[in-house]
């Protein structure tokens, strides 16, 4: 295992960690807005790191570019879905969490 492989592995493990953290956030966070935050920000960072790791490992520019495109499209769609879901939740009257424990 060369140094290069090690660098790729670090990227991918970091990506996997952020994905895991995002999932824990979705399961544990108190309201829909916080969960959206975990889902659409932390997971995108995780995916980006995994993509960087894979792109470094792929060994060809074309594959690396394809992987980056995948990330770009996920970024675009999650940015939009986050806003759309948050707005729909707000319209339906889902109250944002204020930090106080529920009575």
């Amino acid at each position, binding site marked *: 295992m060369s140094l290069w492989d090690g660098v790729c592995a670090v990227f991918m493990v970091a990506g996997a960690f952020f994905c895991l953290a995002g999932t824990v956030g979705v399961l544990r966070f108190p309201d829909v807005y916080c969960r959206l935050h975990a889902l659409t920000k932390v997971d995108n960072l995780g995916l980006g790191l995994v993509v960087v790791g894979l792109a470094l490992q792929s060994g060809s520019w074309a594959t690396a570019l394809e992987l980056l495109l995948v990330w770009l*499209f996920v970024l*675009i769609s999650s940015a*939009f879905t986050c*806003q*759309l879901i948050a*707005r729909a939740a707000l319209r*339906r*009257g889902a109250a944002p969490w204020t930090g106080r424990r529920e009575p």
Partner: protein
Amino acid sequence: MTAALLDACLALCLPLLAWLVLRTESLSQSVVLFVAMGLLSALAWARLDAPDISLVEAAVGTGLTGALLMHTLSWTDERPPDVAARARHRPWAVVAMAALTGMLGWAVLSLPSDDPGLTREVDAHLAESGVEHPVTAVLLNYRGYDTLLEIAVLLVAVLGARAVNPRSERTTPEPSRDPLTGELFRMMTPALLLVAGYLVWVGEHGPGGAFQAGAILAGGGVVALLTTRLGTPRMSSWRVRWALLTGPLLFIGAAVAPLFSGRALLEYREAQAGTVIFVVELALTVSIAMVLWMFFPGMRPARAERSGKEPS
């Protein structure tokens, strides 16, 4: 090792998700779980070395069907299903399911385990088919009549869908012009067109083709329906009818033409086969996109207008 782990994970998750889809009490949850199951089964097809099916599963089985189910959900007043009535039917359902599973399992196990099937014949004649991708060769050359009949089925299906829901009103513009959804449409449309065009072109020598490209285009159409003022296409419009019929008519033409020079149905000339297949696929893409797009109902009927808030 890693591959085996992934496969085992898929094999465990798919039945679990299927069970959860059936079991969950809330309709919206079961729709979300259904979409997740579709994505995992697309992954399973990819693991089975069937990228063509994987693409269709992801685009049609998950994307379009998911959007259709979600949209339908917004029409209905969600009620939890009648648990008591369900329980009464459960023993019979279990017996029927067990019988069906047993039959399917028996059928799968009775297949010869290491049989290449017709792979050798397909590979041997690939040079004559006009394309380089065996799946496209099977779909549009060797078994072209299957695809032809499938297109006819799709046409009948869209007639049925339109008969059930003939509404095609334009959505009323929102009071405040929505910057988000319009921007989404503007950003995604060029990429969607590019991907669809690429898929038709790549079908000649790799996974892709009319169905995948049509599904992608229809997905873009659904986004357009939801985000712009464009109404559902009307069956009464001549342009829509021609778009629906271009693919089938051209395909029938290509199928019948060899008969006039004394060959069999769908027996293309070897030199022209590639061009014929490409033109037919291009026309089929338009028709399939139109069919799939027209499954998507336009506005929600007024009587199903939801009042009040979502029960939590």
